[in-house]
C-alpha cells in the first residue's frame, strides 16, 4: 500500500473541503478500499474518513414515513436499527459478508462502489430509494450506471439514502460462498402503485430492474405470475462460479422465492 495523508473531519462541510484536494478520496468502512489500496490499484494522496461525522450516522424515520440511513452507517447498525421500520432492508444488511465486515462496511461505501455482486444496490434500486449527496438528490433509477460506475461526481459524497417503505419486500440472496457476495440476489418490493424487482450479481451491466417481472407481478402478485418469463442470458455474467445460463435461471428462481417470502 502506498502511503497517504489521513484526515478525519467531523462535519460534512469539512469532508467536502478536504475532498477538494486533487487525489483525495473518501474512506467509508474501508472494506473495499483498503484491499484495493493493498493491491496498489489506487494511490490517493489523502484519505478522508467519513466515520467521525455524526450527521452521517444512524437510521431515522422521516415525517412522510420513509426511512433515512446516514451514508456512513455500518451494515450491522442498519441490520439492528432498521429492523422495525424496514425489516426487508435490515435483513439484507444482516446478510452482507460476515459480522466483522458488517461492523465496518457502510451503506454509502457500498452504494458508491456499485460492485456488480453487492447487496445494497439491489435494495436501493428495488425500493426506488433516493441517494442524497452533499449537493443533490439522485433517484436510484438514475444513479447506477453499470458495473462499478455511478452518477457521483468527483469528490461528491453520499450523505444519506432515503427509502420509501413498501407494503412488503424481500431480498433473496444466492450466496457465492467463497466471496460471501451474491452469486445472484433479487430484491422484490410491493408498493400500492406497483411492484419493483431489482437484480444484482447477474448482469455485466451491474444491478438492473427486471421490467417484465415487474409488470406481471403488478397485475397479479403471486410467484405463478412469473411462469413463462425468463431472462436473456446474453448479458449475464459467466465465470467459474456460474455460467450465463445458470445465472439467468437463478434470477427467475430467486424472484419467485422473494415473491413467496412477501406473501
Amino acid at each position, binding site marked *: 500500500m*502506498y502511503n497517504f495523508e489521513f484526515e478525519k473531519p467531523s462535519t460534512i462541510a469539512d469532508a467536502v473541503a478536504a475532498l477538494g484536494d486533487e487525489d483525495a478520496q473518501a*474512506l467509508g468502512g*474501508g472494506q473495499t478500499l483498503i484491499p484495493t489500496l493493498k493491491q496498489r490499484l489506487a494511490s490517493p494522496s489523502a484519505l478522508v474518513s467519513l466515520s467521525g461525522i455524526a450527521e452521517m450516522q444512524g437510521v431515522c424515520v422521516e415525517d412522510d414515513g420513509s426511512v433515512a440511513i446516514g451514508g456512513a452507517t455500518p451494515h450491522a447498525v442498519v441490520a439492528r436499527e432498521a429492523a422495525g421500520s424496514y425489516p426487508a432492508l435490515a435483513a439484507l444488511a444482516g446478510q452482507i*459478508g460476515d459480522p*466483522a465486515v458488517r*461492523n465496518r462496511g457502510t451503506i454509502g461505501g457500498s452504494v458508491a462502489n456499485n460492485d456488480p455482486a453487492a447487496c445494497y444496490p439491489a435494495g436501493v434500486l428495488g425500493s426506488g430509494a433516493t441517494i442524497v449527496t452533499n449537493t443533490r438528490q439522485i433517484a436510484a433509477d438514475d444513479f447506477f450506471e453499470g458495473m462499478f460506475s455511478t452518477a457521483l461526481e468527483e469528490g461528491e459524497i453520499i450523505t444519506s439514502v432515503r427509502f420509501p417503505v413498501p407494503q412488503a419486500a424481500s431480498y433473496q440472496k444466492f450466496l457465492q460462498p467463497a466471496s*460471501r457476495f451474491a452469486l445472484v440476489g433479487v430484491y422484490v418490493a410491493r408498493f400500492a402503485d406497483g411492484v419493483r424487482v431489482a437484480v444484482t450479481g447477474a448482469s455485466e451491466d451491474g444491478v438492473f430492474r427486471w421490467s417484465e417481472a415487474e409488470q406481471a407481478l403488478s397485475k397479479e402478485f403471486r410467484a405463478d405470475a412469473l411462469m413463462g418469463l425468463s431472462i436473456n442470458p446474453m448479458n449475464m455474467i459467466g465465470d467459474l462460479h456460474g455460467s450465463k445460463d445458470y445465472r439467468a435461471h437463478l434470477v427467475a428462481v430467486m424472484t419467485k422465492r422473494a415473491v413467496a417470502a412477501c406473501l
Partner: protein
Amino acid sequence: MTQVSMTVNGKSVSGDVEGRTLLSGFLRDHLSLTGTHVGCDTAQCGACVVHVNGGAVKSCNMLAVEADGAEVGTIEGQAATDGSLNTIQQAFQDHHGLQCGFCTPGMVMSAAALLKENPRPTEAEVRKYLEGNLCRCTGYHNIVKAILAASGQDVSSIAAE
C-alpha cells in the same frame, strides 16, 4: 506520522504511525501483541479479528488511525492476569477446538463477540456467526462444540468428529 492513542486490553497505549499502518500491524509490530494473527491480509480469513469498541473487526482491514481513541480488545486480554484461561478458551481446550492454532485467536474473539450479543446461540447461529473465520484444520465441528459449551449448553450428545 500521526500519533494515535487507544486503550488495548484495558491499558492506555500510544504510538506514531503512518496513514497506511493497519491496526493488525500496530498491534503486532508496535505493541508486540503477536497473538493477533495475519492469515490472509485480504479480509477473508478472520485470523486477525479483534474487538473495537466491543464489536468484532478484521484488524487487517482497518487503519490504525481509525482506531484512535477506541477501546481495543485482543486475544492477549482474554485470559486472566495470572494466565488462567477464560471460559471460551478453556472450552476450546476441553473440546479440541484447535489443532495448529493459527485461526484460534480470531475464533475466540469472534466467539466472545457472539456470546456477548447472543448468550445462548443455537448451533446454526454459531456456524452463521463464524462465516468470516476460516479454519484449515479442524473441520469446524469442535470449534462450534466448544462455543456451545462455553455458552453453558450441554454438548455431551454432540459426537466428536
